[in-house]
């Protein structure tokens, strides 16, 4: 079992992604990375897909990473890390390395849901002992807010702008967390930085499990979401409370919703503070609010049913 979190001890640990990097003020990604690294009880080697996090944290001759870190290209962080992990296994078997090291990939939604999907799927299927963390801000933010398959229904982005003929993105998001669960890997989770203790517990749990693990973590982007600079954590909380971003884990096939909102808030509470959904509140687009809410309701109900169903199955084995 993973060691329980101890806030006093965590506060003394070194922050492994230093300040002074060039991520935007108020970005949700750096807190996610810091929490993930802080949760690890082992030394970590990380790979990073091209994207906001990558271009802003290692601009030569500076690096914000106090751990070994590798960036290869946009679509291959999983394949790259699978190479690092395989070399580790080879050298360990040969007695050239004795330390216990954990391997974590950090990638945005574009590098995960879209262009890096094949590389991720392959690495998970091969069973590498690694944790893949997607920080999901719901668009290609680094290149200037273009639509990805993680972009929510209705959103106004620069490649699907809310226009007079097409009112933003008309497709629903890809449910990547479930797709990763369908790979049959031992651990899959969805988390939010608003629920920091839940997030870090999941990381600790994941790192105790041998084999491929996947975590999808919401990371608000005030530039792309057109929200207030200091609202990243607030918005990630509302995302959980509206069930837009349910937080759950699937361990060895057993699904557990790790935090259920006492009262499920209407989706409009998540949409309203974000400029990217503004057009949906115009009278002619009210149908969009309805469609968006129906999708959230449907997915939430299904998630609860899945939880009840898998709970009847064999309990998760170590």
């Amino acid at each position, binding site marked *: 079992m993973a060691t329980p979190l101890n806030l006093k001890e965590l506060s003394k640990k070194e922050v492994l992604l230093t300040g002074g990097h060039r991520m935007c003020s108020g970005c949700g990604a750096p807190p996610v990375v810091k929490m993930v690294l802080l949760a690890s009880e082992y030394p970590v080697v990380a790979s990073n897909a091209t994207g906001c996090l990558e271009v802003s944290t290692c601009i*030569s001759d500076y690096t914000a990473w106090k751990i070994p*870190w590798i960036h290869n290209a946009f679509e291959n962080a999983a*394949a790259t890390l699978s*190479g690092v992990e*395989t*070399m580790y296994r*080879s050298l360990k078997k040969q007695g050239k390395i004795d330390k216990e090291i954990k391997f974590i990939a950090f990638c945005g939604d574009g590098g995960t849901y879209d262009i890096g999907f094949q590389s991720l799927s392959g690495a998970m299927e091969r069973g590498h002992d690694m944790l893949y963390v997607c920080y999901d801000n719901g668009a290609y933010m680094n290149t200037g807010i273009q639509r990805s398959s993680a972009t929510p229904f209705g959103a106004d982005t620069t490649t699907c702008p809310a226009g007079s003929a097409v009112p933003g993105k008309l497709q629903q998001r890809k449910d990547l967390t479930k797709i990763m669960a369908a790979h049959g890997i031992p651990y899959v989770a969805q988390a939010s930085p608003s629920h920091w203790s839940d997030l870090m517990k999941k990381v600790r749990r994941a790192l105790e499990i041998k084999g491929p693990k996947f975590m999808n973590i919401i990371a608000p982007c005030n530039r792309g979401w057109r929200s207030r600079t200091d609202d990243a954590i607030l918005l990630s909380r509302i995302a959980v409370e509206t069930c837009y971003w349910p937080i759950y884990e699937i361990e060895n096939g057993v699904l557990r919703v790790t935090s259920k909102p006492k009262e499920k808030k209407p989706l409009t509470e998540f949409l309203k503070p974000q400029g990217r959904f503004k057009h949906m509140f115009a009278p002619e687009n009210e149908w969009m609010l309805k469609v968006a809410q129906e999708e959230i309701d449907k997915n939430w109900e299904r998630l609860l049913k899945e939880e009840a169903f898998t709970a009847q199955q064999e309990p998760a084995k170590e």
Partner: protein
Amino acid sequence: MPKIVAVTGNEAVAEALRQVNPDVCAAYPITPQTDMMQRFASFANNGKVKTEMILVESEHSAMSACVGASAAGGRVITATSSQGLALMWEVLFIASGLRLPIVMPLVNRALSAPLNIHGDHSDGMGARDCGWIQLWSENGQEAYDNAIQAFRIAEHMDIRLPVMTCLDGFIISHSIERIEYLDDDAVKNFVGEYKQLNPLLNIDKPVSYGPLILPDYYMEYRRAQAEVMTKVNKVVRDVAKDFEKISGRKYGLFETYRLDDAEVGIVILNSAAGTTKDAIDALRDKGIKAGLLKPRLFRPFPYEEVGEALKHLKAICVLDRADAFGASYGPLFMEIATSLYSHKDKPILFNKIYGLGGRDYLPDHAELVLNELAEVAKTGKVKTFKEYIGVRE
């Protein structure tokens, strides 16, 4: 004691890789390379090597995993052909830009479309400027020897660059030849222990691989990479000298055949050089003083040495097994022309494109070219500077 065997080119290269015994191998199937990695996987699964295999889902991931594994700190291999190399293209530049000494046999095959699985040099030529060192091989023996020497060149502390060793698809990869294998120990001692440089797995000394470098320093970084390329030539020759000591086989930057006293010459890569040598012998008997130059180190190209070796000729035909669409001439021709450009008295040069998509290159073709060379040398006139041979027009 060296062992004499009758094996295919793929089998010989797989054997070389077994003897080198790398730490990690990423493999993905593609004709005509498949058979090589299949054999290597069998070594791995039968405990004949210590290598950990990564059986990736594409060549893009194969090269990506090689980059990760090599940066992690160890000896890394993969192999590919044609479309596989094309899919890797993006990551090839990253492997060389990060100065990772990965070794990759390339079993040369035509590029699509139209789809074709047979040998030509379009794939290797398409990747000639990606910062990798390229060694080309005429036959199975050279493919075996180049594969072994590639590790020493790639891992040399003055170099630390990836190396591609090229052999012709099917013509060499699937033909059985007489090949001499070195002893396992001889190969092991020759390549030596792998020396790590800034390994990612050293958690006590964290390093960042693959930074963003903007206009303030990008050019200096590239300049440094270009500087490394200038050192390859010497290392290739030094490694060849050491290799001669254990094998008795001589290698250089290129091979020449009856070139010193020749008046006309053919420049050609890989397996077709064998056929050409036979044709040269036949025409020498008829009084045509012909010779041949077969490049071995194609990247970085040894312009100076090649120019010196060819400058005394009256006429040269460069035979390319790949075309460079939209350029005037084939890729090998352009290198030869550049090699001779600075010489005051230049041979007359012309270019033939042959053997695309595995089309046979026959002794008749070589003889036709040699007769034309003799004519050009006599008259000083070239009818067509570039044309396809062995083709229905």
